[in-house]
């Protein structure tokens, strides 16, 4: 590690584990983008890898890599913050390390099987060994069980560490949230021929993850980060955290109903799902207010500018991607036409990136600062253009893709859903419409911008803070000694 001048060995056990998780997360993020680009290209060049690496396989790798890298990022983030929060060392480093390697090995095996075996005959063995064919949770059943075991070990580590050390408000929310997050996964682990029942429970995993438990998890990470980066008092962030939990679960749990409009479920879900999901943006507004208010209150003064920028990007990304883009198609009167079109993909991209990719990236910058010996990442940072360009390219890239998909989504809703009535021929009428195809092209162009941003990001994470002059380090140390904690 000396080559990159990482100060790994002096880290505490929890932070050591965290770095491992972060590294795998970063690699899988790259894999996600690579496969996204291939999937996008298959819209434009339909013969690409035909009957070799078909769209379904490419897309599965794209979205699975995303789910897994985000889970890795979250686990890493919790391991990173837990010792500071509990004020004690992680209790089970060895066990956690073992779980990390098992988990990572399992992920590697699953990816190899996805890519080289791809599909199987229609029997239980295929579902147990190859893939389960259910979007986002395609992992074969054996891997599901492995994931559950690793998450249980993680959970034990978190709960036991808090129990041994200090039990805080953030600890309480985090531990309960992790129970729910792991428990929900079980709802996706069964087979039924009944597609309505299948999708009913499938949405418990997907929706109650991203619109309830994951939101609260990042709420905890955000609360901790604001204390860390800005020095916001604990009382304020914890009170906010409770408010966010109340609003998020208050709207998000029954907001689940916005997926129960058209899958065979009773008509009352049109009302319940429409009403409660329409309230889901409220907590997301609250989060923006909170983050921006706190940052403003501290005159945006902090020692880690890239992390702060990504935290702000998270607050806005969450609000726009989930809140605004989600709200736009959440009422059944609208969703009847947008359901299952590029419209959903538009929302999916901005929401996952804005809400979850961004906060993970912020955590990586918080971690890398420590790894560099806690040098200041402020206005005196050399090569700051790198993190700024990475930030700009990634955000412009995803925003551009989102807008392109939105236009294609509107075309598809009008032509396929509204006029043609969603038939086979109607589907292709929309797919070949000029403006639909334009959107597909622009998505690809912005996809390349996103990928370029990723390359810059990795480069930056590997080099940031290496060339901070000794004089700056000295000056920063003095400033902090004199209680002048922060600097613009």
């Amino acid at each position: 590690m000396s080559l990159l001048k990482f100060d790994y060995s002096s880290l505490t056990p929890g932070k050591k584990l965290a770095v491992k998780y972060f590294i795998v997360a970063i690699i899988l993020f790259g894999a996600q983008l690579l496969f996204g680009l291939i999937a996008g290209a298959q819209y434009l060049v339909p013969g690409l890898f035909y009957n070799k690496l078909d769209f379904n396989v490419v897309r599965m790798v794209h979205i699975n890599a995303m789910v897994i890298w985000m889970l890795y990022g979250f686990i890493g983030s919790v391991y990173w913050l837990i010792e500071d929060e509990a004020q004690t060392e992680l209790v089970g480093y060895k066990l956690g390390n073992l779980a990390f390697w098992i988990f990572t090995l399992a992920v590697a095996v699953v990816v190899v099987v996805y890519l080289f075996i791809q599909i199987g005959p229609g029997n239980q063995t295929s579902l147990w060994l190859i893939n389960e064919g259910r979007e986002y949770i395609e992992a074969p059943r054996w891997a599901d069980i492995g994931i559950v075991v690793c998450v249980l070990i993680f959970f034990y580590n978190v709960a036991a560490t808090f129990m041994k050390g200090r039990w805080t408000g953030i600890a309480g929310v985090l531990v309960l949230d992790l129970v729910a997050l792991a428990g929900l996964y079980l709802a996706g682990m069964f087979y039924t021929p009944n597609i309505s029942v299948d999708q009913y429970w499938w949405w418990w995993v997907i929706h109650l993850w991203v619109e309830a438990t994951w939101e609260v998890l990042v709420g905890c990470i955000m609360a901790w980060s604001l204390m860390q980066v800005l020095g916001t008092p604990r009382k304020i962030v914890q009170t906010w955290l409770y408010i966010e939990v109340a609003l998020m679960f208050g709207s998000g749990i029954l907001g689940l109903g916005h997926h129960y409009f058209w899958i065979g479920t009773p008509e009352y879900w049109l009302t319940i799902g429409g009403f409660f999901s329409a309230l889901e943006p409220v907590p997301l507004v609250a989060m923006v207010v909170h983050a921006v208010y706190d940052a403003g209150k501290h005159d945006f003064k902090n020692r880690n500018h890239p992390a702060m920028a990504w935290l702000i990007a998270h607050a806005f990304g969450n609000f726009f991607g989930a809140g605004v883009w989600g709200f736009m198609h959440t009422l059944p009167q609208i969703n009847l036409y947008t359901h299952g079109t590029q419209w959903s993909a538009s929302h999916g991209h901005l929401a996952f990136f804005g809400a979850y990719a961004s906060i993970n990236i912020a955590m990586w910058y918080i971690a890398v600062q420590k790894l560099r010996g806690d040098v200041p990442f402020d206005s005196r940072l050399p090569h700051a253009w790198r993190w700024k360009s990475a930030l700009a390219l990634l955000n412009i890239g995803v925003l551009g893709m989102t807008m392109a998909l939105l236009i294609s989504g509107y075309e598809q809703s009008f032509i396929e859903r509204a006029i043609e009535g969603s038939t086979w021929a109607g589907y292709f009428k929309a797919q070949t419409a000029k403006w639909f195809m334009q959107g597909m092209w622009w998505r690809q162009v912005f996809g390349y911008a996103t990928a370029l941003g990723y390359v810059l990001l990795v480069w930056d994470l590997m080099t940031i803070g290496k060339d901070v002059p000794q004089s700056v380090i000295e000056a920063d140390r003095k400033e902090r000694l004199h209680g002048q904690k922060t600097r613009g």
Partner: protein
Amino acid sequence: MNKTPWWASESFWRKVAVWITGGMLVILIFLTFDTVKKITAGSSRVPAYSVINKRIYYRFNPERGFMEPVIGDDAPLFGKMLSEEEAEKLVSLGKMTIQAKNCMNCHTLLGNGAYYAPDLTKAWLDQGWGAESVRENMMVSFLMDPKTNGRGYGTMRRMPNLGITEEEAHGIVAFLKWMSSIDTNGFPNNFKTIPQEGDQ
């Protein structure tokens, strides 16, 4: 210094968070019991698997204001009337094949999945199959060899050969027929069906 008012205190909001979460969960669990009952195969919204023995229509219901499946006369699939168990077995083979072949990462089913290929909710009723009399066999041969039997409608986008056996193809067609009988509150709207005997 003035004290924090009760409405801004940590302990107040902690209680609110706990009660709201608990309350919402209870409502969700209650609704889940009701819903699962109503979507079990054999209910009015989700018919029994043996519905594949019948003709299925998709018609506008002026009272509800949207289209709904209507179950008609006998029209056995592949010319064979099946018992409830046999029907379930066949549909289940289809569902299992759909999962094992990962169809949902190209297609949507009930509108959920991927957007690279047509929605399959009402695929059984699609005009693309030409006429009722040839539909079943066309579907089977399409599924077993989509490369040769595909359309693409002027695009090069085609479904790949997925190594589907004849038995599995029968299962898939049974599954698609059964799925088209699910009451989906009018999704997809305005779907134009293949002409079938008994159409008004």
